């Protein structure tokens, strides 16, 4: 009898095909949504990791030991000496590339108008490893060393009605905690992937920013990219120790995963999404539960007959459980396949969140490319099958508890 149960269960699916399809569709929609959601999350995570490493922290960031503590006061005097740290980094085989940056808030003056911007002093030659400037340059060229030139985010240029050749005056707090103003010429307009950078960033040669902010030879931070396979946290500790032993300077050297709270939150959110997925499947499974319950009531006569003929309660449970399992398997498979194909397509064309992200200061690109993963698809499929099958356990158990005498009343 046991060997015939799957066969009977499978055949039973077709006894009311419309109802079985309805159940399968509910599971399929859940599975498809989850595959797409995970694809979007994977895309967001990869995109954020790339943006953080390129535009914000590198894979490892070196700062003055006390900079973070006083960050809100913009303590530019708490800088690090780029020239003395550079040789130490060059000797480290784990370091693939290094660049110095100075981030500074400034007020941009255009006649009587003023606008808050975020300035970045960058060494454009060493930045090549971090940012593919030629690909994001929309107009003009990159600023040249020794010249008061800037590259401006396209949204900022558009909002302020500025173009190539226009001059802007920036006023900022200096490393001596005074103030200074410099006039810069716009030589390039860039389309950064991150909305925040487009809306308020300007990039200038680091030597001019050092002069502007009174940071002779000093930089606010040094960003590193590591060789493939290098452990970021361990390398950060190793570099901090090397700098301290060779220069006697304590630094705040940390990996990008330690520095970015939002990225950490995104990872935590991923765990939360697994729970959300579970609820999705339970929700989808209510259709199966309902269908199974209906089927049990419909087949009460049949159940009574089978029980009277000697079929055990556990076998009856298995029969209905198997029916649920087959529907779940088919529904999940269809949903996962549609979700995978949909995610793959969106991954190619991209999802444009420019309007939604405008004005938001997050390190996620305005155009997101969801990522497909066969492993994720298989996990979602298995997850959907298990949850949906388990959901049918409740009504299936009910079938096993029906007494033949009671069931035969329906005859």
């Amino acid at each position, binding site marked *: 009898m046991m060997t015939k149960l799957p066969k009977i269960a499978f055949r039973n699916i077709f006894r009311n095909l419309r109802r079985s399809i309805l159940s399968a569709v509910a599971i399929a929609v859940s599975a498809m949504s989850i595959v797409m959601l995970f694809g979007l999350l994977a895309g967001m995570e990869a995109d954020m990791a790339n943006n953080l490493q390129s535009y914000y922290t590198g894979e490892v960031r070196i700062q003055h030991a006390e900079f973070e503590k*006083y960050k809100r006061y913009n303590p530019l005097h708490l800088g690090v000496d780029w020239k003395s740290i550079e040789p130490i980094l060059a000797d480290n085989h784990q370091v693939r590339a290094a660049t110095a940056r100075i981030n500074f808030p400034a007020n941009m003056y255009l006649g009587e108008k003023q606008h808050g911007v975020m300035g970045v002093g960058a060494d454009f030659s060493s930045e090549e490893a971090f940012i593919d400037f030629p690909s994001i340059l929309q107009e003009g060229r990159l600023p040249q060393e020794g010249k008061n030139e800037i590259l401006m985010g396209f949204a900022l240029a558009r909002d302020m009605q500025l173009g190539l050749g226009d001059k802007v005056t920036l006023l900022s*707090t200096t490393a001596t905690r005074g103030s200074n103003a410099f*006039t810069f010429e716009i030589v390039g307009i860039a389309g950064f992937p991150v909305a925040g950078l487009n809306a308020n960033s300007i990039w200038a040669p680091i030597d001019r920013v050092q002069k502007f902010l009174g940071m002779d030879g000093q930089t606010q931070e040094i960003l590193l990219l590591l060789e493939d396979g290098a452990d970021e946290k361990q390398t950060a500790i190793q570099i901090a120790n090397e700098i301290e032993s060779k220069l006697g300077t304590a630094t705040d050297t940390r990996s990008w995963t330690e520095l970015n709270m939002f990225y950490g939150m995104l990872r935590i959110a991923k765990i939360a999404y697994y729970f959300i997925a579970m609820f999705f499947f339970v929700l989808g499974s209510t259709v199966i539960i309902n269908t199974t319950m209906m089927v049990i009531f419909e087949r009460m006569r049949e159940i009574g007959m089978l029980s009277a003929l000697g079929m055990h309660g556990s076998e009856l449970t298995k029969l209905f459980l198997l029916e649920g399992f087959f529907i779940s398997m088919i529904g999940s498979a269809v949903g996962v396949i549609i979700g995978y194909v949909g995610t793959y397509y969106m991954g190619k064309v991209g999802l444009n969140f420019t309007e939604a992200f405008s004005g938001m200061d997050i390190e996620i690109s305005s155009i997101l490319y969801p990522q497909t993963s066969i492993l994720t698809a298989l996990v979602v499929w298995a997850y959907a099958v298990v949850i949906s099958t388990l959901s049918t356990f409740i009504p299936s158990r009910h079938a096993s508890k029906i007494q033949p005498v009671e069931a035969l009343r329906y005859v």
Partner: protein
Amino acid sequence: MYKKISRLQKLMILTILLFCIPSILFALSADEIIGEMDRLSTFETTYSTGSIQTTDRFGTKTSQFKSWSQGEKDSLIEFTSKAERGQKILRTEGSLYLFYPDAEQLIRMQGAALRQSMLGSDISYEDMTEEKNTLDNYTAKLEREETFKGNACFVLTLTAKSRSVAYPVQKIWVDKQSFLVWKAEYSTAQGRLLKVMEVLETFKSGERVLPKQSKIEDKMKKNSATLMTIDSFEANPHLDRSIFTLENLTW
């Protein structure tokens, strides 16, 4: 019934009355005190040099300056210390302009920008724009008389007439003799203390007593204080009036 007053008693009463009458007759009102205070702190022209020493959580820094003023409204400060060399602040007719040697345009400070700290000190640009016509902007009330650091003072409360001033309420200790403001407490309308100024040293210019060293503490900042010291002072020197023009600033 009535006891006859002796001649000696009459004389004593008369003497007391004679002593009291001048003080009653010549007691100054709050407005008169403020008017005198403004008059004595205003010169036709001045030239001075000095320093601003700011101590905050990161240490102490000193900036030197040269300063010119004309009447109530015009003043020019030029910084001479290395970090800020060549930077100028021009105040004229209630407007404040900043000149930086590497900037091609003058920066006019207005609105919220005026509340920013000048060179990271406890003095804001808004403090610089305060004009010496106090009664135009404030209603004065004489609270009491009090001795402050051994100096007999009037204690007055100034309440702003409009919202255009830097501080809604000021409590000031004005010397009864020299009309020098020894201490000032600047607060919000709700009584929250924003800033405290205290004169630590004085000097004389003619008959006038002026602050040589003042301590300013921004109570919104933790562990921060600014000492403003006047090293040299010249009253009513001959100044070219073009000093206080925008054209001169960029020259």
